[in-house]
C-alpha cells in the first residue's frame, strides 16, 4: 500500500535553479573581488603577531592622558547631540513624504526619495571638508556635517519603519472622517515613536564614533587627539581615547536598550 506517488516538482525547483544561480553569482563576485583586492588568507595568519603588536602596545593605557581628552570628548558628545537632533528633526517630515503607504503620489515620493538618496551618498569626509571651508575650523562645521549625515541616515531608516506600521488605525481614522495631518498625528506617530527613539540613539552613537574620523579634517572633537596620538606613535594614549569613547558609546547603547524595552 505504501507507494503513494509523490507529485512532480516544478522544473525550476527540481533543479534548484534559483539557489544555485545565486550561489554562483556570489561566488563569482567573491572570486573577482578577492583577485582585485589581493586577498591572501595565509599571509594574514602568518603575520598575526604583527597584527597584535599594536594591541600589545595599547594594553597599558596612559591614564594621566585622560584629563587632556575630557574636554574634546565632551565637545564630541555635544556636537553629536546637536547634529543628530537637527538631522533627525528634519528627517521626520521627509520620511513621511517618502513613505509609500502614506503618500500615493508617485512623483512626489520619487523626487523626495531621490533627494534623500543623494544626501545619503555624500561621504561625511567630503561634507566635513566643505563645511570646514565654509564655517572655518570648529564645532559649527562638525555639527552641520553630522546634521546632514544624520538626516540622510535617519530619514531612510524612518520611512522604512513607517512603511511597516499597522495600517489599521489609519483606516479607522479615515473612516471617522479625519484629514491627513490628523491621521498622521493620531495613528502614525504613536506607532513609530519608540522606533524613532531607538534610531535616534543609534544615530547618536554612530555620530560619536564618526567624530573620531571627522577630527582628521578639522571638524572638532576627539578625532584631533586620536590622530595626534597615532602620529606620535603614542599608543598608550590611543588606548585611553578608545576606552573613553567606548564608555560613551556603551552609555548610549545602554540607554537605547533600556528605552527599547520600556517603550516597546
Amino acid at each position, binding site marked *: 500500500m505504501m507507494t503513494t506517488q509523490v507529485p512532480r516538482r516544478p522544473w525550476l525547483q527540481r533543479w534548484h535553479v534559483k539557489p544555485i544561480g545565486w550561489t554562483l553569482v556570489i561566488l563569482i563576485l*567573491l572570486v573577482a573581488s578577492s583577485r582585485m*583586492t589581493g586577498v591572501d588568507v595565509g599571509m594574514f595568519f602568518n603575520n598575526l603577531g604583527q*597584527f597584535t603588536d599594536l594591541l600589545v602596545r595599547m594594553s597599558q593605557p596612559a591614564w594621566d592622558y585622560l584629563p587632556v581628552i575630557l574636554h574634546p570628548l565632551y565637545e564630541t558628545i555635544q556636537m553629536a547631540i546637536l547634529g543628530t537632533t537637527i538631522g533627525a528633526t528634519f528627517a521626520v517630515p521627509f520620511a513621511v513624504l517618502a513613505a509609500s503607504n502614506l503618500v500615493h503620489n508617485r512623483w512626489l515620493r520619487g523626487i523626495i526619495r531621490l533627494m534623500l538618496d543623494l544626501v545619503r*551618498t555624500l561621504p561625511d569626509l567630503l561634507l566635513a571638508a566643505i563645511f570646514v571651508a565654509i564655517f572655518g575650523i570648529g564645532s559649527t562645521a562638525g555639527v552641520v556635517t553630522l546634521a546632514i549625515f544624520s538626516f540622510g541616515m535617519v530619514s531612510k531608516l524612518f520611512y522604512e519603519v513607517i512603511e511597516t506600521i499597522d495600517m489599521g488605525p489609519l483606516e479607522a481614522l479615515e473612516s471617522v472622517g479625519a484629514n491627513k495631518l490628523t491621521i498622521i498625528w493620531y495613528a502614525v506617530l504613536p506607532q513609530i515613536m519608540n522606533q524613532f527613539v531607538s534610531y535616534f540613539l543609534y544615530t547618536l552613537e554612530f555620530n560619536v564614533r564618526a567624530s573620531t574620523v571627522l577630527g582628521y579634517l578639522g571638524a572638532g572633537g576627539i578625532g584631533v587627539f586620536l590622530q595626534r596620538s597615532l602620529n606620535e606613535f603614542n599608543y598608550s594614549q590611543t588606548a585611553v581615547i578608545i576606552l573613553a569613547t567606548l564608555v560613551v558609546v556603551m552609555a548610549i547603547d545602554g540607554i537605547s536598550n533600556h528605552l527599547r524595552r520600556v517603550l516597546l
Partner: protein
Amino acid sequence: MQTTISKKPATLTLWRRWNWLLWIAIVAVIYTWAITGLHFTGLQESAASVSRSIVHGLVQPDWPYVYNGSGEDLVSLILQTLAIAFLGTIISSLISVPFAFWAARGGKEWLHVRSGSGKVVLTLIRTFPEIVLAIMFIKAVGPGSYAGVLAVSIHSIGMLGKLFSEAIENMDRGADEAITSAGGNSAQIFMLATLPTIMPEFISYTLYRFEIAVRSASILGMVGAGGIGTPMIFAIQTRNWPRVGIILLGIVLMVLLIDTLSEQLRKRLI
C-alpha cells in the same frame, strides 16, 4: 445626564505627572549643556568665494579622470572600493551570526551575563576606530586593499552583530516552538526554524551595511588601505575642486546604483 471623568488613582497620577516633568527636565539639561558647551563659528569671510569655487569645480568636473586605463582612474578605484566593501561585508556578515546569538538576550538567562558580555564585546568592536584597525592590518598584510577588506570585515561585525541580535530578540519564536514540540534538538531547531525565519532580516541588514561600507571605504583611503578615498582626500587637501567634483559624481552614481539593486534584491528575497 452629567458624568464626570472618573478620578485616576492618586499615586499613579502623581508618578505619571512627575515622570513626564522629569524627562523634560533631563532633556532640557542635556541640550543646554550641549549648546552652551560649543562655541560656534559664523560664516567665514571667504565662505562665498570658497563655495563658489567648490560649486564651480563640482559643475565642471575633471572628466578625463573618469577612465584612462592606468588602473588609477575613477572607474577602477570605484570598482576597487566596491570589491573591498563587498568582501568585507560578506565576511563580516558570516562572522556576525555567532556573535549575534551570543549577544541576543534570551528568556531565562541568569542576570543576562551571556548576552551582556556579548553586547559589550560588540560595542568594543564598533568603537574601535576603523583607522586604527586599518593600521593594524596594514602592519600585518602591507598597505593596499587587502588591509581594507580586513578592516571592513572586522569593524562591520560590531554593527551587524548588534542589528542581528536585535532581530533575534524580536523574532517570532513560533516555528522554533513547533520544532521543539516535535522533539528536535537545538541544532535542528536552529537550522529548520530559526534560520529561515530570521534570514530576510539578516539579508536586509547586510545590504544596509554594504551601503555604509561603500561609503566608509573612503575613510580607509586615508591610511592607504585602498579604494577611492586616497585620491579624494588628496583632492580635498589640495583644494582641487574639479577632481573632488568628479569623484563625488562617481560615488553618488555608485551608491544610487547599489541602492536600486539592493532595493530589488530586498524585494525579491524577502
